[in-house]
């Protein structure tokens, strides 16, 4: 699957590509309006990561011309301007999501994964995780034996987040921000994440799965599927 990162800051652009490239994505970059415009016209992408403020033009204009052409590429806007107005405008013009800088790469990855899921499943709402099947429509997880593994809402969201960040270390802070919002992320301790991880791990292992969740000491967690890792 191909992604296009339209971001004029090379350092940021490279980091995004580096991180997302660890998955099955192929990342292309565009550093200014013209290049981005050309690439959008020539290719189809699973998802376009779009910065609003670009040299020689605005990301909003790119979004508009993309939609005028009737393309269905997913679009995730990343902006330094955390303004509701921009967000509403972007979403109104057909962007799929909006993320304010500075963000965690894990968050970006989870959102890109979500956009791609929505765009490419065409009604198919089941994700295979190794031997497990995650049903997005009724938010359930089925074990290899076909039994439903009951998950709390937080555990379900957590699993989905990990699926979007497979084989990568995710910090506790990023998890808290994703699941509880930024307000609570001001807290000094993120230890309460641990109990959710523990429960999720327990449920998965009880269903007969190997231990997918690996604790990275002092940092966070890594979700890796043994078969692909």
């Amino acid at each position: 699957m191909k992604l296009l990162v339209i971001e004029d800051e090379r350092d940021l652009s490279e980091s995004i590509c580096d991180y997302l490239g660890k998955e099955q994505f192929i990342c292309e970059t565009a550093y200014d309006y013209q290049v981005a415009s050309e690439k959008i016209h020539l290719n189809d992408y699973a998802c376009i990561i779009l910065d609003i403020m670009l040299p020689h033009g605005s990301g909003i204009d790119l979004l508009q011309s993309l939609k005028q052409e009737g393309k269905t590429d997913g679009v995730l806007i990343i902006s330094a301007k955390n303004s509701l107005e921009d967000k509403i405008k972007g979403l109104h013009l057909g962007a799929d999501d909006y993320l304010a800088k500075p963000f965690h790469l894990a968050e970006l990855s989870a959102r890109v994964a979500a956009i791609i899921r929505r765009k490419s499943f065409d009604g198919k709402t089941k994700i295979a995780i190794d031997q497990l099947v995650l049903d997005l429509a009724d938010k359930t997880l089925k074990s290899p034996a076909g039994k439903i593994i009951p998950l709390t809402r937080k555990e379900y969201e957590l699993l989905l987040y990990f699926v979007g960040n497979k084989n990568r270390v995710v910090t506790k802070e990023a998890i808290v921000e994703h699941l509880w919002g930024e307000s609570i992320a001001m807290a000094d301790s993120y230890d309460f994440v641990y109990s959710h991880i523990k429960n999720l791990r327990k449920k998965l292992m009880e269903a007969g799965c190997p231990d997918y969740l690996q604790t990275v000491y002092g940092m966070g967690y890594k979700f890796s599927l043994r078969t692909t890792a």
Partner: protein
Amino acid sequence: MRLFARYNRINLAVTAVLLALSAVAYYYVINRILVHELDEELDNYKLKVENYASQTGGLPEKGVMEDLVVKYEPADQPISLHYFTNNQYDSEENKVEPVRQLIYTQRARTRLYKVTIAKPMEGIHLLTRVIVFSTLGILLIIILVSIIVNRFVLQKLWKPFYESLNVIRRFKLHEKTLPEFPRTKTEEFSLMNHQLSDMLTDAKTDYRLLKEFTENASHEMQTPLAIIRAKLDLLIQEESLSAKQVEILDGAYVAIKRISKLSQSLLLLAKIENHQFTEAAAIDLKTTLNEKMEQFREFWQDNDIHITGHLETSKIKANRELVDILLNNLLANAAIHNKAGGKVIIDLKKDQLMVSNTGTGQPLDTARLFRRFYKQAQHSQHNGLGLSIVKQICDQSGILIRYYFSGNLHVFALSWKENGSAQ
């Protein structure tokens, strides 16, 4: 003291002293004039006596005429003419009265007589008093009237000044509108208004520039912050990080988090001040608060903080995003500044919300509580903007916020008019 009052006080004091002095002076002048008149009357009679004596050689009949009392006594030697006043007993009215007398010697029929012509002064005393009192009375009335007139005139003349004063009092630096000063024909006030208007416009411009600077600086910070964070996110993917390296990375993450939170808070403040959140809707606070409490519950449990909520149905008309931030900040504040085993009590009524929490046993400094960068402890990880954001949102949404410390609880009490609209 008001200008009028001061002016009146000085004016009255001076007038009273002047009035008293002039009353005394007036009395003496009038008295002198009247005595002089009296003396002339006595002179006239003396002239008559002299004429009579030169024509007939004798003295006119002694008697009481025109209130005059005339006495002749033989004298041995001439006495020089003199006037004087002395008190005499009046048998008719049975009291002592001052009498004006003229004494001189008159030669008649080869003899010298001492002639005394006397007239009671009762009349002139009465006259003096009547004249002095009526004049003073009129003066007093004139002064009173002029004070009243002055008052009205002054009030009218100074009106533009007080209007300008009101304009300044209502002036808010962060509001968009420029103050409008009343037009006045008085040159001084007109000049003053002009200067004030210029000054306030300058202040507003400076303030706006400062705000824009904060906003731009915060914006500019986001991209480098995003880069640093992304780089860190990549770095932790490395397989062979040592415990030491992890510790260093963790420190860097914490610092990045603080600075990005700081710039976001500053941006938010700038946006609220710029009235960028104008859409208001009726918000069901009970539902919203329940969701928030659910969000915070795990954090509270984990930190051994007990939460109790008494929520009644309540609605507020305000901006949804702002109310969201407001509640987040209030709850986070109550949670973060709590202690292990502490409590958070949320009390929602129809038009009032109280968030109370245990914490330090000391009340917070109310004067500085809502100020930017106010921190109880200087080493705190928090930027001290949370409560100033809360205050700003309350001000903007027509919510009254009070803090008090009671029964070892820090209480933030918010109240609003049930049907009041935001802004």
